[in-house]
């Protein structure tokens, strides 16, 4: 079955089997291994990607379901080789330890900040509650999101003045 969709801002046209999950399409057929599979059951969020800008679990969606839609994976976050402010903030605050949860958490963070550039601690906690991390205890992650938020807003303030 032929599948057309947009992946990380590029059009993709590929043959897939009807029962192929999105995560398997990404990792096995397209070699985008930044997306991780943890539980495979929608519970850990390691497989989070953005579908039309909203976080979804790629282990719980069939490739056929993204026809004509836009998918963003961790590989699509950096812009022209520059890290996304959220990626910088995560590395700086020590929010990345083993790193298994990081791609999913970053995509949830980016979706949150796009929707709500200045989230409260509670809003951050709620938005990221579908992404489990065994290593960090979450505090450093929340700090990273807050740092990214400050930077993004700082930047847009400067841009507005120009």
């Amino acid at each position, binding site marked *: *079955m032929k599948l057309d969709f947009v992946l990380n801002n590029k059009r993709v046209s590929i043959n897939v*089997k*009807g*029962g*192929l*999950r999105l995560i*398997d399409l990404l990792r*096995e057929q397209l070699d985008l291994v930044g997306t991780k599979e943890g539980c*495979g*059951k*929608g*519970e850990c*969020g390691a497989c*989070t990607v953005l*579908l039309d800008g*909203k*976080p*979804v*679990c790629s*282990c*719980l*969606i*069939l490739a*056929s*379901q993204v*026809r004509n839609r836009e998918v963003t994976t961790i590989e699509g976050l950096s812009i022209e080789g520059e890290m996304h402010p959220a990626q910088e903030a995560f590395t700086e605050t020590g929010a990345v330890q083993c790193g298994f949860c990081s791609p999913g958490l970053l995509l*949830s963070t980016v*979706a949150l900040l796009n929707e709500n550039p200045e989230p409260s601690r509670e809003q951050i906690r*709620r*938005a990221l*509650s*579908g*992404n489990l991390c065994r290593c960090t205890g979450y505090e450093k992650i929340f700090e990273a999101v807050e740092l990214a938020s400050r930077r993004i807003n700082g930047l847009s303030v400067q841009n507005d003045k120009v």
Partner: protein
Amino acid sequence: MTMIRVTAYENPKSIEEATTFLAKDTYVPIAGGTDVILELRNGMPVKLLDINNLKLNHVTSNKDNIEIGAACTHTQLASNPIVSQFVPLVGIAAGKVGSKQIRNRGTIGGNIVNASPCADTIPALLIYDAELVLLSKKGRRIARLDEFITSPYATIKRNDELLHSIICKKNNKTGYSYLKLGRRQAVNISRMTISVALDIDDDNAVIDACISAGSVFPVPSRMKDLEKFLRGEKIKPKLFKEAGKLAVDLMIKHSGYRWSTPYKEPVLAGLIERALMQASKGIVQDN
């Protein structure tokens, strides 16, 4: 690599086209897929019918009713102004399903048709005497939600039928409460939910009470005996305590005494008491 064996994947663009497929052959409808994909893993080969392009994601309002399209996602319902104005418990329940990722995909139609004892939106819909619009080549029929689920994970929906929409009656009350108790804050199949809508007059007496529970009975249900007990009573803390006790009796009567009963007894009594207290103060609770 997890493979789901799919021998056909149809993507109809109209209801007519969809019901034609369903009349011809056995298809499994797929909406968000958050229940069905897990079920199909390593299962028998199936034919899938994607229902996401049938324009079933509407929320409309007329004089007496709210109509919710079966393919509305939980995310959509949690922030829909018509829902929060007229059927607030449905919006709160949808906002408490799973995690952000699950709410972005999972639909209200999938939640209902899957018919889990702990489906979060069903008890909330029961408060509004919800009815389901089922479509097939044979025509359209309406089923009451409280008669739709026959036992855990089983419904009266025929294989050739599509759930089109859910119709809720507007019932303005003076207060609401929705409480959900889960093992974890975000991601869980809920262990117990209580939905309450209360109508209280100026003398602080109960005119009407609507109460439902999820994960308490084999299928989500209204607690009619408890509602009857409250009607006409003056509000006082003792009343809500007694209501909690009565709810426990009802649970044992309808679900039997199980291994989990000693755990559930005090939890249920406490939740009922708290939910009634909040609803009596007019709070739409979002804990």
